[in-house]
């Protein structure tokens, strides 16, 4: 078992004929992912390394039965691509593109939520997700990861890889690893992933990597305290780094005292989460948890 995707998940790639689309479609397929089609209006009818290219998501879905789309189109076209996927009935839209304007993100998130409440968005600006040994969608280098009892959820792309690495080095296996992305309006949140891990019988513990800014970690802490029976280990990046982007007074009012690494670590600790001060320490804490399972 796992969350969100598995060996039977059928995936299409929007933007498959771009250099990144081509590279990751092949790489994900080599991992074992069922990459069944691609979308490119201009190059429909051709193929990319044997993967058929369709003009629209609707036609790709009709022909292949795909339920997941990996969206790798340039930022100016990302909003339209996500909406097209939702309209075509795609259930999980994995938006990897970096640099999408915040107003576009806010608009497509709310449009999809209102008009297609069953569709889920992962990202934007996320590294994707991988169910170890079965299905890898996106950038995560998971070749060396082992299957096992731990779920991973992370906001930062490269820290997602680091989390996999820390566990891998200790011989700890993973069910599913999800990178939710750190953009202003992420689709799936920590809570969506934590809730799914709580329901998944094969996941017996969860490691969560957050970072400064916003209040997603505090919200996750409240959820963990109330709803999670499985042990959670966390790390929050930016303990010593200066706050990133200043949002002026209006932003400071929304976040109040929230947003600092210290506040996030305190909220998580209060929720019973074991918090490491760096990724390696978090890995060590998870090793202790796994030894006690």
């Amino acid at each position, binding site marked *: 078992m796992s969350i969100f995707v598995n060996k039977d998940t059928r995936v299409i790639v929007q933007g498959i004929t771009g250099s*990144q689309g081509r590279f990751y479609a092949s790489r994900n397929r080599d991992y074992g992912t069922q990459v069944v089609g691609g979308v490119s209006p201009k190059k429909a009818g051709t193929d990319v390394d044997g993967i058929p290219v369709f003009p629209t998501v609707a036609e790709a879905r009709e022909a292949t039965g795909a339920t997941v789309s990996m969206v790798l189109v340039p*930022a*100016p076209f990302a909003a339209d691509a996500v909406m097209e996927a939702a309209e075509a009935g795609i259930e999980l839209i994995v938006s990897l593109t*970096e*640099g*999408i*304007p*915040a*107003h576009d993100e*806010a*608009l497509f*998130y*709310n*449009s999809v939520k*209102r008009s297609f409440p069953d569709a889920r968005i992962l990202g934007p600006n996320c590294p994707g997700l991988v169910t170890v040994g079965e299905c890898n969608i996106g*950038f*995560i*280098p998971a070749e060396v990861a082992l299957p096992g009892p731990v779920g991973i959820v*992370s*906001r*930062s*792309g*490269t*820290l*997602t*890889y*680091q989390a996999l*690495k820390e566990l891998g080095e200790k011989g700890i296996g993973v069910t599913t690893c999800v990178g939710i992305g*750190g953009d*202003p*309006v992420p689709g799936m949140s920590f809570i969506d992933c934590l809730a799914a891990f709580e329901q998944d019988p094969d996941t017996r513990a969860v490691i969560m*990597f957050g*970072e*400064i800014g*916003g*209040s*997603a970690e505090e*919200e996750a802490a409240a959820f963990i305290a109330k709803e999670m029976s499985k042990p959670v280990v966390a*790390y929050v*990046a*930016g*303990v*010593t*780094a*200066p706050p*990133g982007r*200043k*949002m*002026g*007074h*209006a*932003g*400071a*009012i*929304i976040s*109040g005292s929230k947003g600092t690494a210290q506040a996030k670590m305190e909220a998580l600790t209060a929720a019973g989460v074991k918090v490491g*001060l*760096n*990724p*390696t320490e978090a890995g060590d804490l998870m090793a202790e948890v796994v030894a006690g399972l």
Partner: protein
Amino acid sequence: MDLFEYQGKQYFARYGIPVSAGGVADTVDDAVAQADAAGYPVVVKAQVQVGGRGKAGGIKVAANADEVREHAGNILGLDIKGHVVRRLWIEHASDIAEEYYASFTLDRAAKKHLAMVSARGGIDIEAVAEEDPDAIAKRHIDPVDGLTETDARALVTDAGLNPKAHDGAVAILIALWRCYTEGDADLVEINPLILTPEGKVHALDAKVTLDDNARFRHPEWDDFDNVAETDPREALAKEKGLQYVGLDGDIGIIANGAGLAMSTCDVVNQVGGKPANFLDIGGGASADTMAGALEVINTDDNVRSIFINIFGGITKGEDVANGIVQALGRVELKAPIVIRLDGTNAEEGRAILAGHESDRLISVPTMVGAAEKAVALARKV
């Protein structure tokens, strides 16, 4: 990108938000000319991107040309919390009956936009939020629906603005919403929004933060670039498309991804070092990006060792390695490099680096181990 007040007012004016007549001045003579054009009395305002300008003596009212000369002379060159004033905004002084506050920004937690209006403007709005949160009327705006006139009217009523100001404030909120959405701003804030004794409402200050990700559809933003005040290291980094924040330590940091870069700073601190900077080369960085990053770090005289921490996902190990080799040939690096390279094609990258390793380029397999090595090298120099 944060705009200066005068740029913010120019941006507001594009969307029909009323602002005072005025102009910019970089010299005392220019200031007098602008004041003559705006009509006395005028306000002489320091253009710096930091709060508390008034308290620091950066905002003065002048009744005539002599007073403009005096104030402009004092304010130009003034250091306000580390920001040196190079430019002034001179505008006709407004008669103020009441001062309000208005803003739009994104509420990340709610995933919707947030409008805020208060009858208690002109002062630090964070203090108002803390002491008297009910004095700020808030309303979430769904991006699908946008701000309606009903929303705007409810905001000014809930905030308890003087009824004389209602129509003017509603019109400004609607224009400010367009400035925020069509103008691709992360934040638009008017503090104070004033009501004059004649019953007119207009913006006396302008705070605008633009979303750099939307630059592709705003060619007009290029005008805002050439005057921004930045750390020379940050300016060079920006030119090379790198996310750089200058710090005051002695260990240069290069990492891919904001999270890993922050985490690298954390680990360096934990093993007893101090980062000289935060530098994120981003996803999919090429060899050229890495060489550029090293050039930026090399301009910082405080740097005594460089810690490159790369976990390749999109970024490929051989590109990172080639960039380092390129940089070694292109610039004479003042500090030794410790590199930790992992992820996509890491082995290929390590093989390229192996031929160049020396006491100036050291490869360490783990993040904590590499941080310790970088700190040890910084102490040794």
